[in-house]
C-alpha cells in the first residue's frame, strides 16, 4: 500500500472493527467495517499498479461488458455472465485485473440494478472469484475444468454474500447457520448451473480472446 492516508484509513477501520467486534451486540457493524477496510485496502493496492490509459480502460471495459452481458442473457432466466467473465479475466489477465474487474463489475451493475447492503459483499465476492481465477489459472485451462471451477465458485460467492447477513443479524448457533445457508442453497445452485452452462458454451473462447488482447497491451516499437 502506497499512500499514507490510505494506510491510516485502513488501520483505523481495522481497529474500529476489532473494538466493536468485542461488543458482541454490534457484530454486523464490525464485519461491515472489516469489509470496508478490505475494499479500501484493495483499491489502494490496485492503484499502486501500472496505470496507463490502456490498463484503466481495460478494467472499465471488462466490468462494463460483464454488466451489459446481463442484458444479453436476459431472455434466459437466472443466468448472468458476470461470474464467468470475472473468472476468465483472472485466468487470462492476472491477479490485479481479476480482482479489479470483479469489484468494479459489482459496483457498476448495482449502479443500474440498485445498490444495497450487499454491494460491498458482491465486490468482495466477485473480487475473490477473479483472484481465484488468476491464482488457479493453470488448473482452469480446459473447457470442463473451467466449468467445474465456476460451479464451485458460485457457492463461494453465495457464502461471502450471505455471511454478513447471518453473522450480523441471526443468532450465532450452528442450527441458524445451517438453516441460513440452506435457505440460500437454491439460489446458489441456480447460479452454479448457469455458470457451468456459460463456461461450457463460451469459456475457452472468452479466455483466448482476452489472452490475445492482453498481449497487445505491451507495445513494441522498432525505430529506424
Amino acid at each position, binding site marked *: 500500500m502506497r499512500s499514507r492516508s490510505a494506510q491510516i484509513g485502513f488501520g483505523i477501520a481495522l481497529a474500529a472493527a476489532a473494538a466493536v467486534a468485542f461488543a458482541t451486540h454490534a457484530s454486523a457493524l464490525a464485519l461491515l467495517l472489516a469489509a470496508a477496510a478490505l475494499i479500501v485496502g484493495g483499491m489502494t493496492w490496485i492503484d499502486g499498479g501500472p496505470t496507463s490509459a490502456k490498463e484503466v480502460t481495460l478494467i472499465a471495459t471488462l466490468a462494463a461488458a460483464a454488466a451489459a*452481458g446481463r442484458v444479453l442473457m436476459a431472455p434466459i432466466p437466472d443466468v448472468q455472465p458476470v461470474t464467468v467473465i470475472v473468472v476468465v479475466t483472472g485466468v487470462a489477465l492476472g491477479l490485479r485485473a481479476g480482482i479489479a474487474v470483479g469489484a468494479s*463489475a459489482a459496483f457498476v451493475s448495482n449502479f443500474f440494478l440498485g445498490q444495497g447492503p450487499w454491494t460491498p459483499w458482491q465486490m468482495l465476492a466477485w473480487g475473490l472469484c477473479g483472484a481465484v481465477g488468476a491464482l488457479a489459472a493453470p488448473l482452469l485451462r480446459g473447457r470442463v475444468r473451467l466449468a467445474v471451477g465456476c460451479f464451485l465458485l458460485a457457492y463461494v460467492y453465495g457464502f461471502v454474500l450471505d455471511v454478513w447477513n447471518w453473522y450480523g443479524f441471526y443468532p450465532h448457533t450452528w442450527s441458524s447457520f445451517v438453516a441460513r445457508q440452506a435457505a440460500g442453497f437454491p439460489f446458489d445452485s441456480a447460479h452454479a448451473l448457469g455458470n457451468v452452462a456459460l463456461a461450457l458454451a463460451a469459456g475457452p473462447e472468452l479466455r483466448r480472446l482476452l489472452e490475445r488482447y492482453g498481449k497487445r497491451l505491451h507495445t513494441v516499437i522498432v525505430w529506424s
Partner: protein
Amino acid sequence: MRPTAAAALLAALAVAALVADHLWSVGALALGLLCVCLRAGRRARPYLWGTLVSAGLVFLLSPLLQSTGWHVLWSGPVVPVLGRLDVTREELWVAALNALRLAAVGLAFAVYALLLDHDRLIAAATGRRSVLAAVLATRLVPTFERDAAGLVEALRGRNLAPEGLRGHAALLSPLLAGSLERGTNLAEAMEARGFGRPGRTRLPSPPWRALDVAAVAAAVAIVVVAIWL
C-alpha cells in the same frame, strides 16, 4: 445538499442503527428512513419489498433457531439438526432488534440508491485511478447494452435469431470483442487528451454550504449519541 454530505449522514444513520441497543431508538431510525424512502414514490417499491423480506425472515426464523431466555411463549417439536423449536420473550426481543437493524441499514442503502445523485458523488472522488475505472465503466454500460441489442437485432435481420442459452452465450465473445475495440479507441482518446501526464490538477468543487456542514455535524453527533446510549 451535496451528495458527499448526504452520504455521510446516511452512513451515520446506518451505523447508529447497528450500534444502538434499544428497540425504540432503532425503530425510530428505521421509521425515519422509511419516510424518506417513500419520497421516491413508486420506484421505492422493490427496495421496500426486499428489505421487508430480509428483515421479516430474521424476525420469523431467529427465535426458532436458538434456545435462550426463560419466558417460554411457545414450545414446539424437536427437529433434526435444528434442535428443539421454541419461542421465548427474550428471543423475540433480540429478533425484533436485529430485524429492525437490518431494515434500517437496508433502507439507508435504498435512500442512497433512490435519492442521491450518483454522478456528482463519484465525481467528487475521481482522483483515484480505481474510481476512474468505475466511473468509466458506468459510462460505458449503456453503450455496450446497445451493442448487445444490436448484435441480436443484426442476427434477426439475417433471419438467424439466437435461440436458447447456447445461442445467446455464443454472443458473449463478439460482445466482449466489440467492447474491447471500443475500449482501445477510448484509451487512445484518453492519451491524446493527456491522461497519464504528471502534474494533474483538479476542477475545483463547489463550496460547502451551511446545510452540508450541518449534515456532517449531525452525522457525527448521531454516531456519538448512539454509542453513548
